[in-house]
């Protein structure tokens, strides 16, 4: 701090830069970002608060621990599918078949495991491999045959739904035994309270350490740094928020392992997108495919990896929801699963146009979708109205995204 007065940081020497140093500058620049249309996660967080307030007024059960435990578990399965959607959206493509892919995967696993007595782990592995092959197929259809992923996956949507029905056969439903690992994991595996509190502390500590490390490197290279006070405040807030959330869930059944699994997947995906060369390549391909190609990026490989990951995560999400319902049946992955997973990613702020987005959008978007579904169920509304309301929320979210995009363009931001 003392050296900065004598010598400005390497990236703060241009006189046109307005003073964004220090805590006050950071607040000022965030306000400016929002005004210019760089909204970040603000709309979705405000949306979540509004939804929570409305449903809590309509039905006081909504924010009860018991309901939130269920909400968290329900969201985790769709959230995993939605996390996969983030990857294809980042490269500017789409997979409309994630719903039927999740149902198809659940059916493969259930048929192998229950009807043919295959070991559960092997059944899961085979389902995952089939999903990866399907993702690769979409990628190859796009890169080698120039087939738009929109069409390829729309065809896949129908075809894999058909295969799901075919392998489930005339009975149409396979119940998974309650003592199987998958059902145990998805329904009954909760963290012991002390473990959950410790885990919350680990998350916060991890955040602090990674930020401190970045800060130290930047300081050593004479680059501007985030004020230490702000880091500490951020960490404390994160810690309190996590501890409170876990404490609140612990008042009922607790924090499901499935929820933690989803959170960890989001963190890993976020690291992969923001801190690896592969993630940077995803964003580059989504932003300007030709530029990425000329930079020596293996564009086809990037497309393939995105489609494979999307399909794989759709499969994992399908398996988790099968575990949660303890069954794989004709309606697994049908109905609104597809739209919910895609809508969640978009509501969370991942652009449909490629090159912009975050793993956290799957988390936040899924919470919005899940909260609406849960609230409407509590109100005993028919599913017809649930569809209408979810549709309206999606339209509003995309509308905000488009408006913010226009504002960013007019304020010279990406």
């Amino acid at each position, binding site marked *: 701090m003392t050296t900065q007065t004598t010598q400005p940081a*390497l*990236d703060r020497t*241009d006189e*046109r*830069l307005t003073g964004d140093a220090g805590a006050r500058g950071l607040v000022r620049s965030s306000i400016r970002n929002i005004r210019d249309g760089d909204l970040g996660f603000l709309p979705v967080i405000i949306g979540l608060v509004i939804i929570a307030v409305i449903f809590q007024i309509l039905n006081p059960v909504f924010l009860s621990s018991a309901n939130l435990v269920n909400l968290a578990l329900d969201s985790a399965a769709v959230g995993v599918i939605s996390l996969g959607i983030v990857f294809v959206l980042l490269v500017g493509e789409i997979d409309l078949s994630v719903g039927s892919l999740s149902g198809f995967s659940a059916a493969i696993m259930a048929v192998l495991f229950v009807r043919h007595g295959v070991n559960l782990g092997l059944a899961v592995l085979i389902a995952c491999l089939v999903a990866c092959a399907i993702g690769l197929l979409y990628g190859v259809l796009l890169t080698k045959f120039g087939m738009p992923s929109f069409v390829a996956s729309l065809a896949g949507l129908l075809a894999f739904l058909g295969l799901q029905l075919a392998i489930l056969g005339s009975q149409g439903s396979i119940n998974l035994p309650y003592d199987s690992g998958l059902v145990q994991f998805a329904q009954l595996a909760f963290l012991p309270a002390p473990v959950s509190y410790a885990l919350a502390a680990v998350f916060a500590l991890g955040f602090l350490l990674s930020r401190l490390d*970045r800060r130290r*490197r*930047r300081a*050593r*290279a004479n*680059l501007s740094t985030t004020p230490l006070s702000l880091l500490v405040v951020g960490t404390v807030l994160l810690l309190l928020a996590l501890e409170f959330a876990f404490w609140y869930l612990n008042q009922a059944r607790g924090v499901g392992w499935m929820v933690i699994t989803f959170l960890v997947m989001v963190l890993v995906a976020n690291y992969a997108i923001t*801190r*690896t*060369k*592969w993630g*940077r*390549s995803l*964003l*580059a391909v*989504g*932003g*300007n495919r*030709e*530029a*990425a190609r*000329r*930079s*020596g*990026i293996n564009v086809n490989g990037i497309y393939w990896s995105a489609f494979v990951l999307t399909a794989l995560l759709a499969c994992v999400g399908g398996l988790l929801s099968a575990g949660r319902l303890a069954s794989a049946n004709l309606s697994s992955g049908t109905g609104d699963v597809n739209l919910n997973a895609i809508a969640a990613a978009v509501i969370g702020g991942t652009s449909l146009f490629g*090159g*912009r987005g975050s793993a956290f959008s799957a988390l936040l978007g899924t919470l919005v979708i899940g909260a609406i579904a849960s609230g409407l169920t509590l109100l005993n509304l028919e599913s017809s109205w649930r569809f209408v309301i979810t549709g309206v929320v999606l339209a509003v979210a995309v509308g905000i995204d488009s408006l913010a995009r226009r504002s*960013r*363009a007019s304020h*010279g*931001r*990406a």
Partner: protein
Amino acid sequence: MPGASGAPSATGEPLLSLRGVSKSFGAVQALTDIDLEVHAGEVVALVGDNGAGKSTLVKVLAGVHQPSSGTFLFDGRPVTLGGPSDAIDLGIATVFQDLALCENLSVVDNLFLGRELSPLALDETTMEVRSWELLRSLSAKIPTVRIPIASLSGGQRQTVAIARSLLGDPRLIMLDEPTAALGVAQTAEVLAMIRRVSERGLGVVVISHNMEDVRQVADRVVVLRLGRNNGVFDARTVTTQTLVGAITGAEDHR
């Protein structure tokens, strides 16, 4: 640095030398018997009317097209370029007119795109420091390297594109219409930067339509007309009138 004086008739081995290079696309003879020499530290302007073969020639140099006949010497050794990556490996960098930047990514991200440091845990700090060093050495006026390209002006984008091509330590850099869409001040800035690049000892090939820019920045001017050489001029002594004559074919300098 060698050739820093930028003398038009730089002595010694040329960095790049084409002899009798031809390129045909089916029945169309796009280039016929082209000779071209570029020395280290020299700026060579390539001018000609639309369809004169400038872009084809640049693509041959960039390894995008393979010449139908003729010899291609780099550093005195004959080379054949099988593709763009061969050209890059040799040390020939090209900044195409569309710049090929990712508007959604920041300046640093674009500079290091495809050659990020430590792929599994990106070294953002070192990349940012090296970006600043590079931009400073070019006296580039970019306020911050952490904003997306979309926020930059045309001249700033050109600067980033040129800086990016320099990161690979090339020996020859080709610029396709670097000032085409720029205002007066930005054009001057980019031209000054082109001079600084050549002062580093790089050979520079600039394609341009603007005769004023050409005479200001280049050491030699190579005129193409209908796919053939139509004269090589000393940029300091040639008049715009002579150049226009050579370009339009009013004067034959073959």
